[in-house]
């Protein structure tokens, strides 16, 4: 019995030790992600590129293959499709050994919160080099500058306008509008033929038409909202919401709960126009649609014709390296390479999108014209609301705009709700 007891004891101890060691080494799985590789290694590493654009994995892989050829480092995408899960992972990675080499993020308050933690690698030298070579413009620099230093590089840029179904426009004799009155005539014509003029959604992109109307009528107030110097209850904001409410009641938009993809709706002609960023071109070509033949793109005219320049919403998403990236040197080198014409031609060209690098050719002629005009200062570029609004205000606003779409007459209640969140934020921020 004594011998059996000792054996049992030994067996139990061994089992416990094995389980504990297995539990303690659970992070060993990260070795498969390359996260535990020594920092000292440089050159030829496979860099894990975590991103919230899971649908773009093929495009990332194409650029990754080119990177392997040109700089020796492959870019291996790890794509997420759920934004919230992705953000939670990136934040958690700061406290664990499973860290991305490169990762996508958002400019504005979200980038600042990471920089404030010292989590993002400084890319000031990369920026200066790229600007010197003409790969980036000074115009983009403020979006990536925090406390005088640059962090991350542009993953993409996008100009927001209106995609429209050319067949529907041709059928009813419509042309892209030059003025707001032209645009109103388009809406009236489409409604009279029982065609839903514009797409809208109550999830995530509920802010789109708000920013468009306010930026097109009073861009100064729009910009002042982002810094807390204007209130959501100020007259220009209320007027924009009143206008939007009338359009909702007129039937200018799709049902906001529609779950069919906007590219499918636009392709079928179920909706005539979709107000989105130029990245939507990727979705349309993915549907087999031909730009210039099946669909087109126009810059939405200002509501207020007395404004000197047409307001055009602009967004840019960053590609970043963690300051504690497993292969920091390679990651910084990859970011520098990312901006080159070769890399950008592959990246933007494969998606039929525009590029942050003015030297990269743009395959779509309409988007090329818009990009050229934007680069020459023809438009008043407006920071997209998603990046411009402080995160707590944005969360409240997305819900409020979504509720407004269902009950357009509640615009004042919704603006008060957003202002309440803004008051709380700016009180704590100041």
């Amino acid at each position, binding site marked *: 019995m004594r011998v059996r007891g000792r054996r049992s*004891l030994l067996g139990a101890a061994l089992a416990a030790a094995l389980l504990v060691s297995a539990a303690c080494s659970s992070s060993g799985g990260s070795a498969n992600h390359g996260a535990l590789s020594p920092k000292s290694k440089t050159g030829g590493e496979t860099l894990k590129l975590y991103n919230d654009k899971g649908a773009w994995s093929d495009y990332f892989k194409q650029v990754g293959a080119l990177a392997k050829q040109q700089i020796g480092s492959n870019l291996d995408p790890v794509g997420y499709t759920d934004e919230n899960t992705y953000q939670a992972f990136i934040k958690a990675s700061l406290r664990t050994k499973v860290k991305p080499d490169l990762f996508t993020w958002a400019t504005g308050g979200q980038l600042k919160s990471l920089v404030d933690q010292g989590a993002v690698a400084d890319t000031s030298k990369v920026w200066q080099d790229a600007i010197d070579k003409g790969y980036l413009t000074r115009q983009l620099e403020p979006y990536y500058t925090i406390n005088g230093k640059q962090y991350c590089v542009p993953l993409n840029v996008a100009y927001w306008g209106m995609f429209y179904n050319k067949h529907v426009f041709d059928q009813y004799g419509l042309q892209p509008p030059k003025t707001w009155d032209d645009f109103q005539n388009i809406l009236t014509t489409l409604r009279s033929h029982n065609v839903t003029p514009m797409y809208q959604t109550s999830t995530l992109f509920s802010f789109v038409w708000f920013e468009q109307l306010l930026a097109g009528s009073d861009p100064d107030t729009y910009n002042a909202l982002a810094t807390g110097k204007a209130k959501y209850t100020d007259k220009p904001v209320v007027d924009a919401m009143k206008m939007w409410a009338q359009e909702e009641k007129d039937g200018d938009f799709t049902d906001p709960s*529609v779950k069919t993809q906007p590219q499918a709706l636009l392709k079928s002609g179920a909706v005539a126009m979709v107000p989105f960023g130029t990245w939507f071109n990727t979705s349309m070509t993915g549907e087999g649609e031909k730009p210039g033949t099946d669909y087109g793109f126009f810059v939405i005219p200002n509501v207020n014709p007395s404004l000197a320049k047409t307001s055009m919403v602009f967004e840019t998403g960053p590609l970043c390296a963690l300051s504690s990236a497993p292969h920091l040197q390679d990651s910084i080198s990859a970011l520098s390479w990312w901006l080159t014409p070769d890399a950008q031609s592959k990246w933007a060209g494969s998606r039929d999108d525009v590029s942050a690098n003015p030297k990269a050719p743009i395959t779509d002629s309409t988007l090329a014209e818009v990009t050229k005009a934007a680069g020459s200062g023809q438009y008043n570029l407006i920071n997209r609301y998603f990046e411009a609004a402080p995160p*707590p205000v944005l969360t409240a606003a997305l*819900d409020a705009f979504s509720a407004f779409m269902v009950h357009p007459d509640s615009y004042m209640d919704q603006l008060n709700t957003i202002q309440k969140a803004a008051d709380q934020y700016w009180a704590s921020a100041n």
Partner: protein
Amino acid sequence: MTQLADAGPTLRTAPAKPTHPGRRLLDGVQAWLYISPAVLLVAALLYAPFVWTVYLSFTRYDGLGNPSWIGLKNYTTFFHDDVLWVTVSNTLMWVGGTIVLPVGLGLFVATVTYRSKRGSLLRLPFLIPYAISGAGVAVVWGFILQPHGALNDILSFLHLPGGHTSLLLYRPVNTIVMIVAATWQGVGVNALLFLVGLQSMPEAPLEAAKLDGASGWSMFRHIIWPLLRPLTAVVVGLSIVASLKTFDVVWVLTQGGPGRSSETLAVTMYRDTFVANEYGYGSAVAVLLTLIAAVASVTYLRTQLSSKRNVSW
């Protein structure tokens, strides 16, 4: 019984061996070593996250840096939240709806089919949806419930009202149709549980009731239903807990919107934690939700399974 009674004195009079103190210590250590893996796993995977969540609920934390202690502020904020009434009433609708529909229909399906020769075939369609995840069910029902979706089209085709109604837009219709979607999935497993209860029911009271002339509804009302009470209590108890934490169907179909109109407490917890990045506030909602679920289920089960109300088989 005789054998057991005879064995008793033998067990009681078995001579107790004197135990050496060192041996007892060794036995104790051995016992702890045996259970330590399980204890460690439970502590690491269940207790530690719960304790951490409770701690976070007293802090302000956005997932970056270190949490800062703010006492009870998250809890007071919760009770002053403008949408508290909406989320609580939606959650109560889910609790009520889940008890009435999936449990009620599950009982109906089990009762109607359990003596049928082709009962298993009849129950099969109700069981298959249970194999699908909640998110999958929501995706399928999204095609049915969306504007110009399958349900709208059917209603329009049949010239019935509702063909142009946006089912996911307006409160409380959006919550009601999502409860229906969850019912589609939940009926089968409840029917299965009730079937187990029906099949393990003693024959004697059923035969006696038949001899007394009971049949159909009177048999169900006066014999089967009372005999099923303990099982019903468990099924309803499980449903209460499941409905209080309703998340997947709502998140996939409406994300709690539009404008938080279909939000439940579990969706509030997720939204505040991962969308608004207020991990502290989200943790407070999680703690409150846990307390509500624990109190509701324990109170209900204690009431229903107390010896006075229990029906002996």
